[in-house]
């Protein structure tokens, strides 16, 4: 127990010191991220509250609908928690940097294991907690729960989270035991991404919005019956919903029985993970850390090639050998398909609606492009951070190096950008002028976002990362998304007046066209070249 407390104390000290010894920049970043977090937390609460209030007031179906939404929210968070807890142990347990150090100490293995389990549960669940707490609070506030009821509900939610994360960790340990390979994490991540992309696309194409409309059901009775059905009855997420129902109706029996179910399941699962899985983990930790089968690539004769060719080949090889990177194409494809599908379902009969939708569609495409740049371009400087000394030691100018990088990554952005803009223009059925206008804007934004993405990646590198999503969600990633959002808004705002006049059929003067395009190009120029200028400066001075 003393060992466990000592290690826990160490983790708390590490956390406190990261605040205490933070540099000025880190402090600003911290405040900024916390500010965004608080905004997110409050807005989640307000949105949930408004939705629940609105639904509660619906006649007949209101109360059923509230339960249904709560059940779906709890179920999805339960499944998400299991998924994230399958992945997180790889960084907190299997690839933990301090494991060797802790093993060299006279610390009981049980203490190390318990500490790592706790750490994994915390890391896997904090993000879900930030969403689920305001979501649940909104329901509790609308239903006028007193403090005791709120505490019971909180306890139930926490137990559900504990059960979900523990199940995820157990799956992760089992998988590692049966397939002891360092590539297992990548394999699981790739499988999960493909699985979720397929599920998301299938769900969207099945048009679930129909379920919210009683007219799609043969009888109103069927609709009410559908709404009152339990959602995944055997899952702990439903037990929490039952507790919620019990608290509304002051049904002590319903609350107690479901709380008992949660407590007993929690205890059983915790006993399992602490006793049985502790032994399995011990075995598979060594199996994984000792499996270092190296894949040998074909030994080819070294020939002199151009700098572009060498760097481009290196980039492509790196991309292909890192499945977590290339599998994200699957997400992009799924998102794009759903996006086009959504557009095709819009009622677009009138010309001005078509043009307006087509214009707004540009912002959608630019957001998708931002996400692609974040996933493929922004992360590159962080991935390469420790090798920049090598690049700088090469007889290669910074300008040329940046240019090569740009040429390598531009096609990755250009291809989906062009496909999306051409397909959506065809689906919407706009005239040739708007089609070419949209094409031009997206073409330019591909160039600008690629340059800005790489430059901001250099300006805000995530030096110590365990996996790629950590780079994407870093302070720099957040900055890139916010700046790109501003860029998209400014770009479209600069063109909005032109489009308005075009829709109304008002004559547009050449000087007006020149002015609006000048503003548009200036915005593009500034967003591309300001970060590039500072990135080049930083690259020369720092790395």
């Amino acid at each position, binding site marked *: 127990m*003393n*060992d466990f407390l*000592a290690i826990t*104390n*160490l983790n708390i*000290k*590490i*956390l406190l*010191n*990261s605040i205490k*010894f933070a540099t000025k920049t880190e402090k600003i970043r911290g405040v900024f991220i916390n500010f965004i977090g608080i905004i997110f937390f409050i807005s989640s609460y307000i949105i949930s509250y408004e939705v629940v209030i609105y639904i509660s007031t619906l006649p007949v179906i209101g109360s059923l609908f509230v339960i249904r939404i709560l059940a779906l929210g709890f179920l999805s968070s339960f499944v998400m928690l299991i998924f994230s807890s399958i992945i997180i142990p790889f960084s907190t347990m299997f690839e933990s*940097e*301090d494991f*060797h*150090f802790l*093993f*060299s*100490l*006279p*610390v*009981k*293995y049980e203490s190390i294991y318990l500490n790592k389990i706790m750490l994994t549960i915390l890391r896997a669940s904090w993000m879900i907690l930030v969403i689920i707490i305001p979501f649940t609070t909104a329901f509790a506030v609308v239903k006028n729960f007193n403090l005791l009821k709120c505490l019971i509900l909180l306890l139930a939610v926490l137990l559900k989270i504990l059960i979900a994360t523990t199940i995820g960790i157990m799956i992760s340990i089992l998988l590692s035991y049966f397939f002891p390979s360092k590539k297992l994490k990548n394999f699981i991540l790739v499988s999960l991404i493909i699985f979720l992309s397929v599920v998301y696309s299938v769900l969207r194409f099945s048009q679930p919005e129909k379920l919210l409309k009683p007219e799609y059901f043969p009888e109103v009775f069927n609709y009410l019956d559908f709404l009152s059905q339990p959602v995944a009855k055997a899952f702990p997420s439903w037990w929490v919903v039952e507790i919620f129902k019990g608290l509304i109706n002051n049904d002590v029996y319903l609350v107690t029985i479901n709380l008992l179910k949660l407590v007993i399941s929690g205890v059983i699962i915790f006993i399992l993970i602490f006793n049985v899985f502790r032994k399995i983990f011990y075995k598979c930790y*060594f199996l994984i850390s*000792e*499996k*270092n*089968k190296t894949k040998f690539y074909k030994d080819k004769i070294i020939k002199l090639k151009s700098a572009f060719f060498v760097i481009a080949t290196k980039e492509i090889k790196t991309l292909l050998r890192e499945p977590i990177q290339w599998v994200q194409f699957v997400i992009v494809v799924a998102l794009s398909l759903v996006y086009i599908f959504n557009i095709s379902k819009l009622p677009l009969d009138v010309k001005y609606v078509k043009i307006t939708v087509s214009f707004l569609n540009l912002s959608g495409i630019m957001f998708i492009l931002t996400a692609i740049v974040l996933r493929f371009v922004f992360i590159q400087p962080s991935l390469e951070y420790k090798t920049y000394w090598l690049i700088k030691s090469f007889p290669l100018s910074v300008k040329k190096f940046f240019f090569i990088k740009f040429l390598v990554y531009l096609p990755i952005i250009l291809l989906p950008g062009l496909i999306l803009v051409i397909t959506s223009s065809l689906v919407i059925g706009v005239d040739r002028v708007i089609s070419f206008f949209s094409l031009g804007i997206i073409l330019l934004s591909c160039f600008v976002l690629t340059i800005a993405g790489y430059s901001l990646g250099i300006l805000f590198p995530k030096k110590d990362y365990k996996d790629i999503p950590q780079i994407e969600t870093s302070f720099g990633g957040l900055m890139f998304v916010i700046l790109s959002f501003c860029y998209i808004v400014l770009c479209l705002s600069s063109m909005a007046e032109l489009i308005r006049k075009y829709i109304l059929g008002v004559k547009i003067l050449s000087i007006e066209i020149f002015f609006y395009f000048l503003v548009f190009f200036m915005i593009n120029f500034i967003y591309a070249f300001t970060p590039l200028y500072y990135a080049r400066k930083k690259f020369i001075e720092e790395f």
Partner: protein
Amino acid sequence: MIKVVDLCKRFGNKEVLKKINFEVNSCEVFVLLGPNGAGKTTTIKILAGILEADSGEVYILGEKMSVLNTKLKKHIGYLPDEPYIYPKLTGKEFIEFVFSIYEKELENEKYKFFLSQFELEDAINLPIETYSKGMKQKLLLMSIFLREPDLYLLDEPLVGLDPKSISFFKKYITELKNKGKTIILCTHLLDLAEQLSTKIAIIYDGRVIIYGSKQYLSEYLNVFSDSLEDIYIKVTQNKIYE
């Protein structure tokens, strides 16, 4: 003090240790020499209870060593080749953490002595992430020396150290040996091995090719030279097996 019997270890398809055998007594500085990938670090890790051997046994103080033997680990001070220290802790907090784990009282006089020897006074209250590689190495050595364990397992201990610290290290190791401690050093520095060792083991391709005092090695191998370099090259180039 230490007895290693038929130690074998395999990583995937690669056999890293092929029946390693040696013995080390108290008051000895035992140096493991060998080319990169010979199996030195793996041997040290198994001795420190960080890795489990596939077969064979390690006895320390008459007790069988394993990853789970926490009792035995209290007698060991281990310095890894690629040390990881919590970057967000200060040097002092790290030392305190180590001491609380080993359940030892930190002696203030000694603490100050090592701080001044390693010139860490100004850095000890700063986060470790601000330390240079050498400073981290000094901090780790300090955390081990302060505890005074019975057995020192030091893998490439001089990496990143400045000349003053190297000189102190050498003197202190000799002092420890005279106090009856056992030290196992893993190094590529032949002059260090020559200066400090009482016994040398040359590991090559997962086997201990030969071990003993420098004099014994040169006589056994018929190397009529004072240089350890000549002995090392003869063993590794001619691939003398047993």
